[in-house]
């Protein structure tokens, strides 16, 4: 079994919410429920906007704290699910369900150390 990170790729845009947000939320909740029911669910969560991010770094023993995300891009990580699946096809199948629910691209990426 291998664990996969399913990342929701969200457009950064001007922060306006999609008009069918209610439906999207309930579709995503339903996929999350299916993942738990199938026993593949490891962890999942939605993230606050990149504006709420803080970056800390250590250079020469000094801690530098800065406001905002590490990089500002046209897209950002909107949320993610971690699942456990026997192979990429199974992971891509869950990724497809999540893409349908979120109406957004999903990046599927394996964690190290699976066997």
């Amino acid at each position, binding site marked *: 079994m291998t664990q996969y990170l399913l990342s929701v790729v969200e457009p950064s845009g001007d922060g306006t919410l999609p008009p069918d947000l209610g439906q999207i939320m309930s579709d995503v909740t339903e996929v999350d429920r299916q993942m738990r029911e199938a026993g593949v669910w490891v962890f999942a969560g939605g993230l606050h906007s990149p504006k709420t991010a803080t970056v800390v770094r250590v250079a020469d023993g000094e801690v530098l704290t800065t406001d905002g995300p590490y990089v500002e891009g046209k897209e950002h990580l909107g949320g993610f699910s971690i699942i456990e699946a026997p192979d990429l096809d199974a992971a891509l199948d869950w990724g497809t369900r999540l893409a349908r629910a979120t109406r957004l691209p999903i990046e599927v990426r394996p964690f190290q150390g*699976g066997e």
Partner: protein
Amino acid sequence: MTPGVPVEQTVEQVFREQYARAVAVLVRVFGDVDVAEEAVADAFTAAVQRWPEDGVPPSPAGWIITTARHRAIDRLRREASRDDRHAQAALLHARDEPLDVGAVSDDRLRLVFTCCHPALAPAAQVALTLRLVGGLSTAEIARAFLVPEPTMAQRLVRAKAKIRDARIPYRVPGEQDLPARLGPVLAVVYLVSTEGHTASAGDELARADLCAEGIRLGRLLHELLPDEPEVTGLLALMLLTESRRPARTTADGELVLLADQDRRRWDRALVAEGQALVRDCLRRGQPGPYQVQAAVSAVHSEAPTAADTDWRQVLALYDLLLALTPTPVVALNRAVAIAEVEGPAAGLALVDQLDLPGHLVHAVRADLLRRLDRRTEAAQAYAAALERVRNATERAFLERRLAEVHAVG
């Protein structure tokens, strides 16, 4: 084995015929492409050393597979004892997996679907298929696609790492996913053969080895999936195209268009085989792009001279193809058929509406303008085609045509 044939030649022949089969079985046994490739390479090295002395074994393929498995297990045990988790996993996999040489056709098919998995980039799919299923060396693949060898090696390493790390499965897709997953497989095989047929760049018009490889892969797929009409269609298309290769260039290597080819030089056996396959797949009543293109090719093959070509039938097939795959390239081919049925002016009206990159649209426009005796415009169109063409043989052809319209005009 054939008496009187040198053992090295036998090893080479076994390599050509059995490499994919051996790799496929060992990928299943060890669950790892690198382990399988290395093991099969070891076994062929052993064959070169042992067969001249011991004689060629009664079942060379079986010998290769068994030897490869033994050698891989020996090596993996050494590596596993040094805490190599990878080697441990491969050994564990091999313990549960029977050698089972009987199910090889399934193994090869699984390998094809792994190589052509949509999670791999198309260029990587082609390279992996030629490497693992075709048994071509990295150097050969690099040369065939005019890429530096280190670039091709890196492409292969990355693709194999992704198969391993992302766990791209080694499995024939279920019936429900098969049509979608078959698409990239057919595209890879077709690309190998078209790249061989008209090298997109370089000096020789056809790189015969790639044509042969495409057909070999096509035959393998057809043998493994005899009930998929598009697989049959693709094989037919490749065979019919290949049948014309002897007539496509003059002795000096100059390009000869279909209309001007000496049809006595077509390979009759390939024509007959291709036509039979076209009839076989069309009977199934599930037309697809490869079948329709093969049918177009079959119509051309039936005409004893270019003037006898049944262009109405060709046009009807392009109508169908355009409905199945509405792309500018198909529209361009359809416009050529229209020009034959309704005259060059009708064809030109359609070509003028098309917007597509490359030299082909300009070459077609130039030819239609030439036939309409609009020589200045024809010369301009030939010049536009020449600016874009990359294959040296096609370039020479366009230059001759350009000189002709200049000479008369």
